[in-house]
């Protein structure tokens, strides 16, 4: 069963302050994501990968088309047109987005950054923090950094925080942008393992990556974007 069915999705930016300049980011995208499926999204920068992901997360408003999403309770919601409150609710419980770079609220410790998505679900800070520490341990973040502010961390350390924060609440749909860009091979493998274990539990993943190593080990299927269109879809030949 598909968790997401994107139909004729288009995204166009109208830049009023640049003399009404228009930029076509996505054009008539059709895409199905099955439950428990991991899709690798590839393409040059500017091809629309991030735009597609942000449309799914509603950080971007779609210009045309539909994004049908099947909730855990079996309701179908069009993410392109649903009310803001519905989207907020889904973000809290089902859909998580992990951007390329960690952008967190300043002056919050690593453990709190990671455990925050669990708070509305568990409502117990101590338990949420335990789960966060567990995850940070597996991702090899030095213990000394757990209570520090991630703003000061290296790229690789921030990346680990970012990934941990995205997966800790075991979302039904995970949108993840370059999860391993600045990680060493050992940590890459941990991330791959963690995401695959989510998949076994039913999570569907849309993953942008340039890393063949990761794409090979992670994705069930690859989509290649060019100028806002899906140009080909590669099924791994097993």
């Amino acid at each position, binding site marked *: 069963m598909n968790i997401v069915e994107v139909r004729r999705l288009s995204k166009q930016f109208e830049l009023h302050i640049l003399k009404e300049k228009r930029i076509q980011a996505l054009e008539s995208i059709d895409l199905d994501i099955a439950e428990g499926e991991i899709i690798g999204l590839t393409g040059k920068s500017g091809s629309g990968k991030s735009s597609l992901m*942000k449309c799914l997360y509603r950080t971007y408003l779609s210009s045309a088309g539909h994004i049908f999403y099947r909730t855990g309770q079996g309701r179908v919601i069009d993410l392109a047109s649903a009310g803001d*409150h519905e989207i907020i609710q889904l973000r809290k419980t089902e859909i998580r987005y992990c951007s390329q770079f960690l952008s967190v609220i300043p002056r919050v410790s690593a453990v709190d950054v990671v455990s925050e998505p669990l708070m509305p679900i568990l409502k117990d800070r101590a338990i949420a923090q335990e789960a966060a520490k567990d995850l940070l341990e597996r991702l090899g973040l030095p213990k000394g950094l757990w209570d520090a502010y991630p703003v000061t961390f290296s790229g690789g350390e921030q990346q680990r925080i970012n990934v941990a924060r995205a997966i800790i609440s075991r979302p039904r749909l995970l949108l993840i942008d370059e999860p391993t860009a600045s990680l060493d091979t050992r940590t890459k493998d941990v991330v791959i393992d963690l995401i695959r274990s989510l998949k076994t539990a039913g999570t569907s993943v849309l993953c942008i990556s340039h890393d063949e190593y990761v794409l090979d080990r992670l994705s069930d299927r690859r989509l290649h974007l060019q100028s806002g269109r899906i140009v080909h879809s590669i099924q791994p030949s097993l």
Partner: protein
Amino acid sequence: MSMQQHPWLLRVENLTKIYGEPGPDTLSKTGPSFESNICPDTDSIVACADVSFDLYPGEVLGIVGESGSGKSTVVKLLCFDMEPSVGNAWLRPYMDGAVDMLHVSGQQKRFIRHHLMGVVYQNPRDGLNFRFSSGGNIAEKLIMAGHMHVGRIRERASFLLEKTEVPIRRMDDLPASFSGGMQQRVQIAKAIANHPPLLFLDEVTTGLDVSVQAKVLDLIRELQQELGVAMIVVSHDLSVIRMLTDRTLVMKNGRVVESGLTDQILQDPQHPYTQLLVSSLL
């Protein structure tokens, strides 16, 4: 079942405030497309018009706009500092949301204001009585809620001041002797004294030093997470809005020009004014 039908905490419809006598075309001749909120026929001033939104329990809603956009007016109308010209608002904990709170008696409004809301103003002098000690200011709220035991009032005031990181030994001092940041903390302690489900924050960090601003924002965020209180945050500062809010209304010339999830407003603004605002963000 009724919660399913009405999940909102606060519902606002057509909130409008006009100064002076409006003419028949006042609303249609003012607003962002005219770059003005002054009616050309009657010279009446449309402080805000047709503002409608739902606020959910625990939600943080931002209202952003330049000075004169009407954002503070919206808050002042909702916390009864001003009377609206037109408009209705329902608050779930008041009469189960069945009675328009903007059209009840002054006594009822005062009850709502002091039991179901907290307000933190830009200027601490608007939210605090400078003739009373900081503890006395908190006591005022508690007394309004029927607490008549000095010992317990002081206990609760100490707890709240500790929570907002005001040294407890300053409890019996006048707020005039406090720094600006500490005055805001006392205001916040007073605002949350009666566990209100709804908090209004009107430009609370404007005018504070950057480092003090950061600490006040941290406090607000922590309290929000801990208490789960819904908030309406008014600010001209998009970084405050980005840090605190889930959803944002953008106002200009007294009207809401755009509303959406805060990350969408910041990354994919639709209205020309919002695009300008976002592009000016440092």
